[in-house]
């Protein structure tokens, strides 16, 4: 920086100009030398092979089962185990989970009438799965979530809204 601020003679300026030119050309050559071995797949040397994976499907002879064990696919809620505590709804940073519950009068259980996950909002961060106490909410290995309608992105796992008469029946059954 200091060198540039002080006044240069014409000779020094010309030398600096050409030095910059040659250093630019040399760095260009060096960068091409770094990328060139990758050409044609570069499979000969192991650490230079392609690091992205093929899309996991039968075309590339890989299936969803080959995915890593902790891969986070679309969410699934086992409503039989779900207690309706609402931890997942509270912890969700994007508000993708909507929960509606009805408390049963006689027992401590709740009736999970609505359990909607909006995959348009979901970022697949996995916080809800971590916070799920009965471990009913899990990541599946399903990853193909493309749909034609935006409304199709909402996955419903709830038992449905319930009338008071029906609620009494459920309570009677225990």
């Amino acid at each position, binding site marked *: 920086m200091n060198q540039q601020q002080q006044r240069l003679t014409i000779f020094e300026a010309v030398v600096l100009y050409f030095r910059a030119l040659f250093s630019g050309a040399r760095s*260009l050559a060096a*960068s091409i030398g*770094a990328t060139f071995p*990758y050409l044609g797949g570069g499979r000969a040397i192991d650490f230079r092979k*392609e690091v992205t994976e*093929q*899309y996991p499907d039968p*075309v590339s002879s890989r299936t969803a089962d080959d995915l890593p064990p902790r891969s986070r696919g679309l969410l699934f809620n086992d409503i039989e185990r779900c207690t309706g505590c609402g931890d997942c709804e509270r912890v969700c940073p994007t508000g993708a989970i909507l929960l509606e519950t009805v408390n049963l009068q006689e027992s401590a259980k709740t009736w999970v009438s609505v359990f909607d996950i909006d995959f348009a909002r979901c970022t697949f961060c996995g916080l809800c799965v971590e916070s799920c106490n009965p471990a009913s909410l899990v990541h599946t290995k399903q990853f193909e979530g493309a749909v034609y309608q935006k409304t199709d992105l909402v996955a419903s796992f709830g038992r449905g809204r319930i009338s008071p008469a029906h609620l009494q029946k459920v309570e009677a059954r225990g």
Partner: protein
Amino acid sequence: MSFFEFLADNTPSDPMMDHWLFGLVKLAITFGLLIIPSLFFMTHFERKLSADLQARVGPNRAGWAGATQSIADLLKLLQKDTRQKQPRWSWPTLQVVALFSILSVLPLGSSVLLLDTGMSGFLPFFSFSVYVLASVFYGLEQKKMEGGLSGLRVGAQFVSGLFPAMTALMAAGIRAGGFRWSDFVASQSSHLFGWAIFSDPFQFLAFVVFVASGLVILGVPPLHSGYSEVELRGGVTSFYSGSELGLFRVSRLFAAFYWAVFSTTLFLGGWSGLGELAPPVAGFAEVVWVLMKSFGLLFIILLVARSTPRVRADQVTDFAWKILCPLGLVALLGTAAWNAGRVTF
């Protein structure tokens, strides 16, 4: 009178009509059988080679090794809705018209060359300036920060790249003794060291300056910060969508391809150097030879583009003004001195 009767009546007797029909047929052949397939070829190999150089897989779904991916992309873009209020005459249309006008002077081979005037070497510059100005005005027309800034950058890049490109073209013209494409080709003999770039050091310098300033003018990677798709939310293309965006992308490919063909003709021997062949075979071989050399040049540009990060907008213009301009002048003066005794105008 049907159209074919009209043709039959007019073709043999009227040499002017003959000329026009011949020109039209040449244009159709050049465009349909050479340019369009070349563009699909270019798109595919650009993608595959970029993927290789970046240790990715690249397109692998549509067709064998993703060979028809670019066709699929084009069909998809054409199907998409464009913006609501679409004027009949828009800037992308002007860009396409400007690039189409180059087709009449595109030196792909002596058999498909339509016009060979004493100004041939300069004609692409006029078309390219219309092409770039359309981008600039489209960006400014949006009255938004992204479009306006990007439009100004594209304009600044164009202005800075034009002068070195012109000096390099002059250098080539001095060596060839004229600005006809046929002059350029005739002055370069068949063997490798007869090509202009290897004939003297100043021509090599002029070649480098010409190609680099073409990247600056047209905003070809790695000097494409004027079009800055990423950091300016699309830049001049932020209002484009659907078929307009497709048209714009294709036109940028066109422009890069044209520049490679011009560089090939000016410095890499053009269509010369195939020896004696029978007329139809010779015409075909010339085109293939020019296309091969152009794609080779584009491959080198791609190699540079994928090996270096994108250059900042002010650095691009700095590079053009402070490095390409002096070098272009050196190439021009050097060529003039080198060829002083040889050329007679």
